């Protein structure tokens, strides 16, 4: 099973869309609220080199923003 992390904020529409896409496809993921969790925020900035959300990490590969094509490719859907 692939390790999937989502760095998100509670108010971000694209974060919700990302998580719904993962749930609809029965993909387990770890969700980090970068508004509340400072360590997660710093980790997201260090890994992605930027401050926008969502950031999605799949087996060490990073994408910024909701990109259905990238998610499908990385998850083999």
């Amino acid at each position, binding site marked *: 099973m692939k390790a999937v992390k989502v760095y998100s*904020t509670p*108010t971000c529409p*694209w974060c919700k869309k990302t998580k719904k896409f993962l749930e609809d496809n029965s993909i387990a993921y770890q969700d980090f609220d970068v*508004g*509340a969790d400072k360590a997660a925020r710093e980790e997201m900035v260090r890994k992605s080199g930027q*401050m926008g*959300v969502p950031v999605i990490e799949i087996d060490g590969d990073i994408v910024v923003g*909701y990109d259905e094509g990238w998610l499908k490719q990385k998850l083999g859907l």
Partner: protein
Amino acid sequence: MPPERSSIPCSSAKTWEGKPNWTARVENYMGYQFIEGPELMQKFEQQVKQFPIEVKTGDGAVSISRQDGGFEVRTEKGETYRGRAVIIATGKRPRPLNVPREERLRGRGITYCAICDGPVFQGMKVAVIGGGNSALEATDDMIKIAEHVYLVSLTPLTGDRTLIDKVKRAANLTILAEHETLEIMGDNFVSGIRIRDLKSDEERSLEVGGVFVEIGLIPNSELAKVLVSLNRLGEIEVNCGCETGVPGLFAAGDVTNVPEKQIVVAAGEGAKAALQAHRYLQRLG
């Protein structure tokens, strides 16, 4: 609309996006007292998927040209689609400040979506640029999150009085009306902005880690500008039937000169454009 599949209507877009997806609270769409923007967009998407429409996402249209009595649409990825009628419903995008380092620091402290990225700036000093309702709403969001908020507006604040009264009571807000934003500072991430007081001509720097640009929207009309008339705002000029003046080429929603940029208006305009395009195709036989 590839020629070999011309019987199936096709919709091509970057994503099922649009401004509603950036809107947390929709309270003026008929049938809903309250609905979140993404949920409303999801309902639109589900409804479209009930019909045999070939939907293309992950690519964006970059140009439309006339071709063999119809049109050819080219995309960012080099695909081409041909059709006898086209509806342009490309909406608007945030207007950039056009100041030094904006492009380089985009996403690195500069954001155009307070609702998305606001919580990332928890406990930081930030600047909101703009003086209208969008800027005031971003300010209202950020005074609850940030250590301090500077609201920097080129003009006196132009938003609703109720919104102005609501935010101006905040102890962690400094309103800098009639100030021009000259540049954004920072190497890898935003470290501040430089502003100029239009009355005194005095320049100063503000130390901020985030900049929220809320100075309005510009229409995504570039793809059709050689074919259609644009108004001074860059919006595609249409008549009440969503016709652009080029037979077979229609436009609807925020990209057009139709007054009032609201979801309910855009949805109605989209319906009108679809019906007009349908009639146009029937007339062609």
